[in-house]
């Protein structure tokens, strides 16, 4: 095989794995949208907040230390040298469940029956609020997230692929980041877990009922509020997983919240209400972006990854507004 073909395969493989990372974020959106009809723009910031909290617990940071130092003149930073990643993750999950409960109590409860666009704008407000809050609580500097997932290029794969070219041609092997492979594996297991949860447990059935029809679910005795807290908690846990993946890749910093913007084209392609749609949409966007940048990018100046996903989603929207797997939108006068 020629280096050209191998490079294209490399771009496609990397695109698929990048797509899986996008789908992780999109998954949280789909969960909340299915169950409560809210498009949660704050999902990206939830990823950031979960990652910040995890690092904070891991390194033994005192929350709000900057604020306390300024107000009281003290000089506190850490209360311990940190804890093992496992316990930090458990604690962060508890924090995200608490967050879901608070959001339901103070925001969602008052916004029942509002127009979808008002709910969307409320989640934009929530995103800004959580961003300031997260920065206030744990500090805005870039943090290094390490839960033990190996990273870096896979030398084993590079060695294997180096032998695939004809003798004499110069080719240094295919670059696959081990972290991306782990992320793919974790995302697949997460989706399988979520699917098993929603199909075979009582709570999962209740979630599906609420996603179908709020009124009918209430009439058979399902407490809508409890279900919403559960859904937001699950979305928070998914956000934690996504935050760990993205944070391990590029550090925990403000730009993590911008992946919410990247997840929007994924959702449009896959459909807002479909979990497999989020995965497939993510894969398509990931591969499409990388291939476009690789093939057409150099001709028009590069850096097309910023907008290509949106243009792709836009073109898709013109022909299939509900996405690949979404429910058809029916409007009544």
């Amino acid at each position, binding site marked *: 095989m020629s280096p050209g073909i191998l490079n294209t395969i490399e771009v496609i493989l990397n695109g698929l794995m990048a797509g899986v990372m996008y789908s992780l974020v999109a998954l949280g959106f789909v969960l909340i949208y299915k169950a409560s009809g809210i*498009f949660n723009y704050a999902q990206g910031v939830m990823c950031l907040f979960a990652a910040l909290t995890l690092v904070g617990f891991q390194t033994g940071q005192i929350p709000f230390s*900057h*604020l306390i130092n*300024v107000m009281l003149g003290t000089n506190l930073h850490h209360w311990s040298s940190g804890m093992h990643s496992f316990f930090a993750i458990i604690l962060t999950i508890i924090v995200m469940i608490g967050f879901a409960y608070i959001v339901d109590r103070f*925001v969602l409860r*008052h*916004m029942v029956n*509002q127009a*979808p*666009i*008002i709910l*969307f*704008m*409320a989640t*934009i*407000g*929530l*995103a*800004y*609020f*959580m*961003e*300031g*809050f997260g*920065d*206030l609580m744990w500090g*805005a500097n870039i943090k290094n997230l390490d839960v033990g997932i190996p990273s870096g290029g896979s030398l084993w794969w590079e060695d294997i692929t180096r032998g695939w070219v004809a003798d004499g041609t110069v080719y240094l092997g295919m670059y696959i980041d081990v972290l991306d492979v782990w992320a793919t594996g974790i995302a697949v297991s997460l989706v399988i877990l979520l699917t098993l949860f929603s199909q075979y447990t009582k709570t999962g059935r209740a979630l599906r009922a609420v996603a179908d029809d709020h009124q009918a679910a209430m009439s058979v005795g399902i407490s809508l509020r409890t279900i919403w807290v559960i859904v937001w908690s699950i979305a928070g846990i998914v956000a934690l997983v996504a935050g760990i993946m993205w944070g391990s890749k590029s550090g925990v910093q403000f730009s993590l919240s911008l992946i919410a*913007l990247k997840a*929007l*084209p994924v959702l*449009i392609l896959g459909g807002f209400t479909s979990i497999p749609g989020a995965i497939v949409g993510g894969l398509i966007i990931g591969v499409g972006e990388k291939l476009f940048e690789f093939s057409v990018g150099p001709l*028009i*100046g*590069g*850096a*097309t990854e*910023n*907008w290509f996903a*949106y*243009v792709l*989603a*836009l073109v898709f*929207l*013109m022909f299939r*507004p509900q996405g690949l797997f979404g429910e058809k939108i029916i*409007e009544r*006068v």
Partner: protein
Amino acid sequence: MLYRETGDFKASYTKDQQIFPIVQDRWLVFLFCAIAVFVVPFVINDYWEKSVLVPVLVWALAALGLNILVGYCGQVSLGTGGFMAVGAYSSYKLTTAFPELNIILVVLLSGGITAFVGILFGLPSLRIKGFYLAVATLASQFFLVWLFNKVPWFYNYSASGQITAPERLLFGVPVSGPNAPPWATYLFCLLFVLVLSLLAKNLTRGRIGRSWMAIRDMDIAAEIIGIKPLVTKLSAFAISSFYIGVSGALFFMVYLGAAEPTEAFGIDKSFLVLFMIIIGGLGSILGSFIGAAFMVLMPVLLKNIMVGGLGWPTDLVAHFIFMLVGGLIMFFLIVEPHGLAQLWRITKEKLRLWPFPH
């Protein structure tokens, strides 16, 4: 008792169609305009001009434009930053290519060019609705910023990739560039704001405004009774983009002086203007002004209190501003979805009955 329409009979059609039927409202508005035109230019200084007055005027124009699109016509758009960039770059290219062209004409023409671009990026609205349209406008935002970064013709092949506003004179006084006196830039922006807000008010009161509101409320029913969705939606995009383009041109020429697309016209500006109209009040002309004033003044006020008064570091204050903005958005959407303008309307309603309870 004091604030009523009773006893004030309109004797002509013109009087009947006044924007402010109650005479106290008219006095208030005239007083405000008189102070703005005749008093402020004499007491203005550089600080007030640069940090309060010109930003409020420029963002009020942008908020007016976005309010026409989102508040009156119901088409959610997150592309405001990109359209402001179009306005800024059009004004730059026009004024560098035709230095003799009157600066007012340059700004108006940039608005016109932005209107064309707005129609182009508004075409998806004929097929897509709600937040799908918001995502489609995100495409315009990111694409336009990328375009102005990548294509050297836009920044006249300069080495830095930045555009700088050349000094231009209006009636012999510089209004752009470093030598512009504060009162000149202020009056220049005020001129545009006064004329264009009057235009906006009359547009929204008239036939076009009513067709926008019909599309916003129930677009299928509007189409059934004969309102043409194509003309209505595209006109909303066109007029809104005109306002945003003019605002972008003023933002660049008068306020910033030099601009770079990602920094000056990024997605955060789109969200900023959206927040202005949410807090100010969707579908309200006054709301655009209140929202713009609020979002400009609030960080300045907080900074003055916290950094100047309490001595806190600026990064802490920045986090508080984020939290406050987000919290206020949620608060307004829960408590008063129609924003501060609605609170003002309720105050006026209560005043009409005062001192009687009902």
